[in-house]
């Protein structure tokens, strides 16, 4: 299956000291599209991942705007409920599996080898393969929208039996697409683990690694632990749909609730898969612009591991309304409340890093600061949701929608943007356009809060999730949300503009682009980073301060 790959460059010359653009002794890469199809270079694959996820972010965003436009006013105004359900489902699936996860994988591809002083990923050809699985998977997934009966319409959580016995015929393709995307994530995770464990620069121990590398290592372990469970669940669905088994079908002695247990056993760690790398990015940016070492590096590592372990024990809090016995309800309530402690530790560490620093507000810092505030708000609503009796009122309402969007949009997505702004000088050799970046930031922050803050109120007032039309008392909240959503959506065009402008030119950036507190290994190579770096391993020195 793996594409034919050009011969590996031989190690003749250290390129760290060599200026980009000349002096390369490498075999000339294939030209045009073949270059991208066949590339095994971690930087190029990283760029591919990032471009792919940006495209998917817009596609998922358009779906979200269809949903928001329909909800602008009461009544069925634009789309029918059937298509509305397909839009909510596709929005969730695309954003989770095709936008946020590949974006983090892209950043990992670009930055992990640079941050640990490795010449490339451990398995470059596998790397190429795992990327190219993604366009296949999501072209297939998107094509289900045009199939008879439409695409998946059962929500991104695809609860059985709505997703099995009562599903549209295209569900088999949905399962196949998810399988392919899952294989891609798993291969990516194996590659990252192999790289981090084996390819660190001499002298760099685990506890010397930048936090982005640490959080990704833990994320990769989570991926290996839970993606096979997802694969198992969708395989069971496939068998229920096509081969007459009854895993989730009560008529044959199965149990629909089992589906939810299995799904959330995957699903809750999945939530952390989407946020742990964000912690790593923010932990790199805040010290850089506070000009002060990160407070409690070790406790950050430990807290991340603790969150990862605890994430396997809390899945039942998604299911407080299915009728679990009291002891189960209490178990999941307690364990969920417990997970707030290490998460709190992280926030306290960031704030203490800021305390008595020397703070400036460059674009990456703006996004990182917004991340800390807004992610914490999402954490608070998460804590409220953990209280099982109160969850009977919150469950499956817009309060939940507000909660997880606060964690995922100004959480995961803002951290990705912060990371992109932070590393753009390294990638392109230019600083991002300052004014445009600031406009992008402020419009995004205002848009995000306009969109998602009113959802708290709508949910508390009683608006259920995933409805295409609503009672009149929710009208004002929804109107504001829709306005905010369009503002947020269109302001992302500025992001594209900033990135494109930055690639084409702008203020030149030096190797150490963000000052002496952004001092991980990636800042020792020239900006822009040449195609091949660290072919001679650097000597790792612990930071002086």
């Amino acid at each position, binding site marked *: 299956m793996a594409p034919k790959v050009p011969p590996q460059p031989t190690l003749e010359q250290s390129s760290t000291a060599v200026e980009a653009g000349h002096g390369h002794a490498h075999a000339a890469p294939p030209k045009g599209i073949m270059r991208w199809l066949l590339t095994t270079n971690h930087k190029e694959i990283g760029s591919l991942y990032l471009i792919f996820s940006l495209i998917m972010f817009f596609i998922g965003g358009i779906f979200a705007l269809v949903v928001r436009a329909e909800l602008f006013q009461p009544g069925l105004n634009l789309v029918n409920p059937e298509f509305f359900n397909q839009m909510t489902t596709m929005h969730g699936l695309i954003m989770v599996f095709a936008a946020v996860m590949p974006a983090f994988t892209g950043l990992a591809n670009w930055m992990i080898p640079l941050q640990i002083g490795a010449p490339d990923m451990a398995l470059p050809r596998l790397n190429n393969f795992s990327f190219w699985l993604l366009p296949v998977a999501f072209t297939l997934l998107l094509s289900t929208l045009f199939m008879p009966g439409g695409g998946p319409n059962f929500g991104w959580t695809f609860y059985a039996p709505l997703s099995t016995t009562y599903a549209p015929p295209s569900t088999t393709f949905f399962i196949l697409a998810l399988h392919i995307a899952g294989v891609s994530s798993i291969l990516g995770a194996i590659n990252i683990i192999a790289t981090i464990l084996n390819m660190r620069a001499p002298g760099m*121990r*685990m*506890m010397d690694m930048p936090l982005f590398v640490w959080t990704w290592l833990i994320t990769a372990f989570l991926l290996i632990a839970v993606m096979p469970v997802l694969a198992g669940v969708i395989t069971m669905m496939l068998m229920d749909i096509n081969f007459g088994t009854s895993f989730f079908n009560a008529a044959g002695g199965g149990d629909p609730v089992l589906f939810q247990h299995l799904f959330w056993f995957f699903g809750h760690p999945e939530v952390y898969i989407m946020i742990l790398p964000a912690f790593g990015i923010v932990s790199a940016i805040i010290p850089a612009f506070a000009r002060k070492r990160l407070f*409690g*590096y*070790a*406790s*950050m590592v*430990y*807290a991340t*591991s*603790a969150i990862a*372990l*605890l994430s396997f*024990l809390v899945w039942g809090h998604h299911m407080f309304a299915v009728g679990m*016995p*009291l*002891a*189960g309800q*209490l*178990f999941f309530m*307690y*364990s969920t409340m*417990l997970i707030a*402690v*290490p998460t709190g*530790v*992280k926030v306290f560490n960031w704030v203490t890093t800021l305390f008595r620093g020397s703070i400036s507000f460059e674009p990456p810092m703006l996004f990182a600061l917004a991340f800390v505030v807004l992610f914490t708000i999402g954490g608070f609503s998460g804590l409220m949701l953990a209280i099982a009796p109160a969850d009977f009122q919150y469950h499956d309402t817009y309060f939940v929608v507000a909660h997880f969007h606060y964690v995922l949009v100004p959480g995961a997505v803002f951290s990705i943007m912060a990371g992109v702004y932070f590393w753009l000088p390294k990638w392109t050799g230019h600083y991002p356009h300052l004014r445009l970046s600031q406009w992008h930031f402020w419009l995004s922050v205002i848009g995000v809060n306009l969109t998602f803050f009113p959802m708290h109120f709508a949910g508390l007032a009683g608006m259920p999730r995933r409805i295409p039309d609503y009672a009149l008392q929710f009208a004002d909240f929804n109107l504001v949300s829709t306005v905010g959503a369009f503002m947020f959506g269109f302001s992302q065009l500025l992001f594209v503009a900033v990135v494109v402008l930055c690639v084409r030119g702008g203020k030149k950036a030096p190797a150490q682009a963000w000052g002496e507190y952004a001092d991980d290994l990636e800042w020792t190579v020239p900006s822009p980073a040449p195609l091949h770096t660290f072919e001679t391993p650097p000597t790792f020195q612990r930071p002086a301060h």
Partner: protein
Amino acid sequence: MWGVIKSVLAAFLGVQKDQQRRADFEHGSAAAFIVVGVVMTAVLVGVIAMVAILAAR
């Protein structure tokens, strides 16, 4: 061994002195920490489950 347990316990709370941490990583083996970590997670599960079952009575 006690040192390892203490370190892992500290890790659960997210508290660890830099010095202690350096000591851990110079002397202890990674495997020991992972094993103790998993065992402690199991213990934690047991404790939460016990509290939950007691409270459910």
